[in-house]
């Protein structure tokens, strides 16, 4: 436990990871997470670990693969387009059953996007991202304090279930300063004991350990066997936070920074005499579906508030399963919610309005899109065409 101090999100995360026993970090610079490798470069060596600025994101995640195979608490961090590059490594880590920590401090997308904070990588994080049938555990902090404390939780979950864990934060959380305290004492990884599967130098003639991501003829059996762990995780590991969620007319669902704007809406609504609650998933996978379904059954409407264009809302709909209407209040590509705009959407739900509620097909209403080609401009592929 520490006293509350003012820290920048990215620095709290990096310090939290070192405190949690991370002893290998490889990364490649990208805004808005640059303070993470910067901090690691300054302090990882002092902790007895290794910091590598890799030549690319792909190299960094594969270095983590190697370090994780030795049982070392290993991690990498990046932001959205960089995490896209890492997906090959992540699916290989999942296939090789290796624990590690991957941090995504999200920015606007798609493509290069923008450096504004965003939540557009929800699908990528919760649906695998890479190829094949696999999951990563996804933790979504909503404060600098959680950013600092989640690396320890992440490593512990990753090691327990032998799989990668991702911390999904966003640019604002990474860049902001806030008072925070660590809720744990520094971990000395040398006291943790070895894994029986880890690749290392050994004596006493035990059989050698190998780490493979390629399963050959055993692939089906391997994937089916691993899914038992996934089932267990879905049953026992969902984490969430509730505010006034038991007795409300509109239940807001939001994670990360959006959930803080929702708190403002919950409190403002209370002043107006409107009953609004908040359900904040802390684990995005496993998604806390069962509890959300219970709470949603008592509400008139459920509103997904997200800095993306209808991603979180899909898990909300799966959980609610048609029993209560589910709506979307969306702020994509770097848009930022605030209490007032969320309340507008809440009032729309209660009064049958439309303002603040996003529906993809209604959004396209009356819009016609044509594929335009003009032969006067020349023929496709004809270099002599045009004027």
């Amino acid at each position: 436990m520490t006293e509350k101090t003012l820290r920048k999100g990215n620095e709290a995360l990096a310090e939290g990871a070192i405190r949690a026993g991370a002893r290998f970090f490889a990364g490649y610079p990208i805004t808005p997470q640059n303070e993470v490798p910067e901090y690691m470069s300054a302090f990882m060596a002092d902790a007895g670990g290794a910091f590598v600025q890799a030549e690319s994101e792909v190299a960094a995640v594969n270095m983590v693969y190697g370090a994780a195979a030795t049982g070392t608490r290993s991690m990498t961090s990046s932001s959205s387009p960089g995490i896209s590059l890492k997906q090959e490594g992540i699916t290989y880590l999942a296939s090789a059953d290796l624990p590690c920590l991957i941090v995504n401090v999200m920015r606007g997308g798609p493509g290069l996007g923008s450096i504004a904070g965003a939540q557009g990588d929800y699908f990528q994080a919760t649906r695998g991202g890479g190829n094949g049938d696999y999951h990563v555990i996804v933790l979504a902090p909503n404060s600098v304090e959680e950013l600092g404390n989640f690396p320890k939780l992440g490593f512990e979950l990753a090691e327990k279930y032998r799989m990668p864990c991702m911390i999904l934060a966003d640019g604002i959380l990474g860049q902001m300063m806030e008072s925070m305290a660590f809720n744990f004492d520094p971990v000395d990884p040398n006291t943790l004991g070895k894994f029986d599967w880890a690749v290392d130098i050994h004596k006493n003639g035990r059989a050698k350990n190998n780490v493979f991501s390629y399963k050959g003829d055993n692939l089906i059996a391997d994937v089916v066997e691993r899914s038992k762990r996934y089932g267990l995780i879905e049953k026992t590991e969902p984490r969430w936070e509730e505010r006034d969620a038991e007795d409300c007319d509109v239940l807001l669902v939001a994670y990360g920074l959006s959930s803080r704007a929702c708190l403002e809406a919950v409190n403002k609504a209370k002043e107006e005499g409107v009953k609004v609650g908040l359900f904040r998933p802390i684990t995005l996978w496993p998604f806390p579906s069962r509890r959300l379904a219970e709470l949603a059954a008592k509400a008139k409407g459920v509103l997904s508030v997200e800095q993306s264009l209808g991603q979180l809302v899909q898990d909300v709909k799966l959980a609610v399963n048609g029993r209560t209407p589910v709506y979307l209040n969306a702020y994509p590509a770097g848009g930022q919610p605030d209490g007032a705009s969320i309340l507008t959407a809440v009032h729309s739900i209660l009064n049958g309005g439309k303002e603040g509620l996003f529906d993809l097909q209604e959004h396209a209403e009356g819009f016609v899109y044509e594929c335009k080609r003009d032969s006067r401009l020349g023929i496709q592929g004809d270099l002599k065409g045009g004027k």
Partner: protein
Amino acid sequence: MYQGIRIAGFGGQGVISAGILLAQAGVENKKNASWLPSYGPEMRGGTANCSVVVSDGEVYTPIVSAPDTVIVMNEPSLPKFEPIIKKGGLLIINSSLVNSRPARTDITTVCVPCNQIAEGLGMDRIANLVALGAFIKLTGAVTLESVEHAMKKVYKRAKPEMLELNKQALQAGYDAVK
């Protein structure tokens, strides 16, 4: 108490560092505080600004889109931030460098010649602290002592005489508001 503040000025006027100081002072006062710089492809010589929240309760989003108080240190920041101040909010203008005055009448405007006062103390660069002193007098969001404590934590490598000068600037700003 929930104070959302924007501090804006030229890069180099210390608006970012005044924000960190204010947030740290909030923490010293056992309040919750957040700080967020406007980061992005900012232009050299252009405007810089930061958002600070000081609250007795939880800090909602650290992005202050409708500030209770705006401190404007240079001319270009006035038209940018005047429109977003909350109704009934406070606008502190560095009248040494800002000649324009706001058109809005639903806010309280206080003019403080920050650079002039700072120059009087012998250093133009501490105008940001003069503005912060005025802010404290007007809002009581944090105490003067807490900012003095915060200075030692934020300006770790500052010489004692520089800290002393900073304190004087803070006090002068505080006293400049009647």
